[in-house]
């Protein structure tokens, strides 16, 4: 898949405690061809991850209960979730929060207000790497087949 190819079929989990933000993100992403599932807080996000597979998680940081950073920690500790790229969408613009995001291995850090084109370009990049990952699986399978011949 070329990186500029659009629309994409990637499945995105959107997590934000603000219903208005969720609605806008849902609309934007749907228009670009993404399949989305919404979660209103960190716990709902973890529940959704346990239930379904996702290609990318769009994650707010400040949420009641389990916050975005705690979600990242749990995702990194779980072998099945640790490979899912996380894009943080946050109003927090300070170096301390950025440093935490970096330490937790998040894929992108975007501060609100979010620019739509910027968000799309970051989403496309992560969807591209997920696609690349799947193609490497196919390559590995092809090599294994060659070994069997």
């Amino acid at each position, binding site marked *: 898949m*070329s990186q500029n190819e659009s629309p994409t079929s990637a499945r995105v989990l959107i997590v934000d405690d603000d219903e*208005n*933000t969720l609605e*806008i*993100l849902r609309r*934007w992403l749907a228009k670009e061809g993404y399949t989305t599932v919404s979660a209103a807080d960190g716990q709902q996000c973890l529940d959704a991850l346990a239930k379904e597979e996702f290609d990318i998680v769009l994650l707010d940081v400040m949420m009641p209960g389990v916050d975005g950073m705690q979600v990242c920690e749990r995702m990194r500790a779980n072998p099945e979730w*640790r*490979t899912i790229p996380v894009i943080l969408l946050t109003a927090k613009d300070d*170096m301390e929060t*950025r*440093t935490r995001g*970096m330490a937790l*291995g*998040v*894929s*992108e*850090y*975007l*501060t*609100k*207000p*979010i*620019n*739509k*084109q*910027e*968000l799309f370009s970051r989403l496309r*990049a*992560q969807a*591209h*790497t997920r696609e*690349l*990952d799947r*193609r*490497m*699986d196919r*390559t*590995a399978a*092809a*090599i*294994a087949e*060659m*070994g069997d011949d």
Partner: protein
Amino acid sequence: MAVTMENFVIKGSHPVMEKILQVAQKVASTDSTVMIQGESGTGKELIARYIHAYSRRANQPFIAVNCGAIPPDLLESEMFGHERGAFTGAVGARMGMFQLASGGTIFLDEIGEMTSTLQVKLLRVLQEREIRPVGADRTVKVDVRVVAATNRDLAMEVEKGRFREDLYYRLQVIPVLLPPLRERRSDIPVLVQHFLDKYNAKHDSRRCTIADDAMVHLWEYDWPGNVRELENLVERLVVLSEDAYVQVDHLPPNIRSFISEKKIPRPSLTEEGIDLNKAVEEFEYRLIDEALRRTKGNKQAAARLLGLKRTTLVAKLRRKGGGANQAEGYLI
């Protein structure tokens, strides 16, 4: 073995890199042709050397040919050698890279730059496992593993008729795809530390470290030149550092300003063109939204921040329609 030193560089800890290295290791045990695709600076030659180092050919030569750096009319004799008198200046016979790589691996970088005439000849080499030096009337058998690389989208080149489809499929037996560094951002801090260690070791007395906020700037930057650009910068920072402590001020301006530019992206003119009025309007709305956010919706204060009369701001808001966070293209 040279590759040991570099192993870590291509390793990284990003899941996709782990997978790529696993594939590289598996493919090393076969003799198949490998095609490595990735942007410039992503480490294509390192992967090729890695495959060679883990193959049964490890003790034989690894020969790298940059097909884009050698003038097209010389490339054929560089690759396949020539007979004495084959062309003006060919005073003696000379072996080509394929013969020099005998028993080992030949790495053909920037394969997409090869002329169509040479593409036909390479296809023949891959099919027959023999080469014909320029000016020779006989062919010579060669036992060489071919690893090719490109930073172009070769499938697209095939579609446009610039690259032979049959050669493409011959080369594409095992495709290895390297992601650009910005798509595996989590590896950046690991790589920065690795290069700091590497260049500290080269300069005996250096114990150069980096401030957390400087590291964040490196982490958020998009690295169009990928790992190579990152390595060059870290080397420069280590060499030029006066107090062995890299801070934000020591970083190049384009990296320092990157975080703020991400918030108000520099408009870019795409191939399809843009709608200038719409782009200007979007930029305007973005600043209006930012001003309203900072003043918690106080239009008088927001207008002052923007150097506008309140009435002008209200008129603009009316034209824009909807609330602050319905601004087309932005989300507060």
